[in-house]
């Protein structure tokens, strides 16, 4: 949506410059005020911590990445399935849709310890927390997309003798795809948070676990190192979804250019 049609490279420049300036300012302030490392480490110290602990960090990042990807993929499948049911049946829409919306009001952080009780310390409860985080934006967007199908186009297909299945495959699903991907992009951004929350509640590995361990020992530079890596993880996933959009929906950029 934000990407300029012919200059996405240039689109990256302003935020990168701002980030760099912020990091430089942070470094300078810490050096000038001689802030102790356990209170606020300088970016250089964070970089050093990244370098010193990269083996350990890589192991934990992999754990978090696995939880995130599994949860995200599961949320996509579940979201599309529920959205399909909602779009297909008035009854399902009236019974399930309000619950889907209401589920967003349940504090996931409060539910996470319960998941621990029910599913133990391993992968499962973390994946579930990620699913809880990602499910909503994907479902709601896909429902909107399935409803956005052009009625006249649906009628055209029916006049050609298309059955409900063909209408679904040839019009409804393709017109929902951009919406689904928009939802997936939002989900990708929050999915890592889900995995971290799951790990904070109880775990023996992962970036969330590493953060809590390091914070309790006042190894603040290592906390920041883990923060940087989890942010990168979220960005990579976000970027992957955007890349998928470019590959899957080449026509979309044309339509946008046409409108501007």
């Amino acid at each position, binding site marked *: 949506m934000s990407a300029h049609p012919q200059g996405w490279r240039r689109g990256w420049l302003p935020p990168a410059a701002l980030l760099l300036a912020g990091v430089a300012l942070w470094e300078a302030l810490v050096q000038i005020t001689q802030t102790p490392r356990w209170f606020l480490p300088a970016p250089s110290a964070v970089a050093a911590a990244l370098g010193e602990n990269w083996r350990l960090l890589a192991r934990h990042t992999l754990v978090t990445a696995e939880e995130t990807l599994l949860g995200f993929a599961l949320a996509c499948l579940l979201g599309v399935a529920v959205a399909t049911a909602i779009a297909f049946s008035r009854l399902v829409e009236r019974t399930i849709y309000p619950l889907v919306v209401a589920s967003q009001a349940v504090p996931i952080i409060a539910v996470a310890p319960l998941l621990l009780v029910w599913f133990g310390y391993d992968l499962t409860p973390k994946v579930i927390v990620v699913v809880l985080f990602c499910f909503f934006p994907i479902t709601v967007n896909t429902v909107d997309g399935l409803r956005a199908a052009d009625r*006249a186009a649906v009628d*055209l297909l029916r*006049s050609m003798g*298309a059955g409900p299945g063909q209408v679904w495959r*040839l019009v409804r699903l393709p017109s929902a795809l951009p919406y689904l991907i928009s939802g997936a992009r939002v989900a990708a951004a929050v999915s890592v948070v889900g995995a971290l929350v799951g790990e904070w509640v109880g775990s023996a590995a992962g970036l969330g676990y590493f953060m809590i361990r390091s914070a309790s020992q006042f190894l603040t530079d290592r906390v920041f190192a883990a923060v940087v890596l989890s942010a990168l993880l979220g960005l990579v996933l976000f970027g992957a979804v955007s890349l998928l959009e470019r590959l899957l929906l*080449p026509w979309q950029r044309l339509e946008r250019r046409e409108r501007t």
Partner: protein
Amino acid sequence: MQPRDTQRETRPEGRAPRLALRGVSKVFDGPRGRVEALRGVDLTVYEGEFVAIVGPSGCGKSTLLNIVSGLDQPSAGLILLDDAPATSRLGRTAFMPQRDLLLPWRTVLDNAILGLEIAGVPRREARARARALLPRFGLADFADAYPAMLSGGMRQRAALLRTVLPNKSLLLLDEPFGALDALTRAAMQEWLLGLWEDLRRTILFVTHDIEEAVLLADRVLVMSPRPGRIVRDAPVPLPRPRDYTVVTTPEFVVLRAELLAALRAGEGGAG
């Protein structure tokens, strides 16, 4: 009160009726009460004939095409396709709505094969058949272009290719050139005349433009304002092949004036 000279049907010699409507009426029950869209419409379209329906906007022309295509059912009356009553008509005619409705995620070629694909023709074969017709539709270089890259006239030709390709015995065109600018519109009309000479398909063409109707059709049916009825059935005596120069011939001018008078009389009768 109203002039009713509709029952005198002009039948081309030795041709079989493709489409016949007998006493077709349509009433909608809307939130603002009953709306009578069509009242007792009788018409016949014969094999290979190009019939145009003209009428003021809101006279039920589009409702009529929706009913013939099978998207809607009449409240009363009978519809015959190839001389047999046809209650389920979906998939039997080729319908082209006012908007081109090209699917933005499909290329020109894949939009064109939509009807064939729905009919179960394998994609490879469908694409080959569409590709063969692209040059005739002025789209030879645009097989893999997306609709957003096309001009208005090209989009309309792509939509027409999609309509023609499945080889249905009856084409229903609903103001296909209504949204185009005057120049493109004239070019498209001439192009359609040529195309029709080549393909000789049966066409029922709806428009609010008398000139367009006379230029293109073998026969022009005039519809009254709502509730829509056929108030005039006029054969077009102009020779074929035609091009845009016929619009200045005396025959053309006389017929246009006559049809305009019929349209006006219909409006007066209703108002």
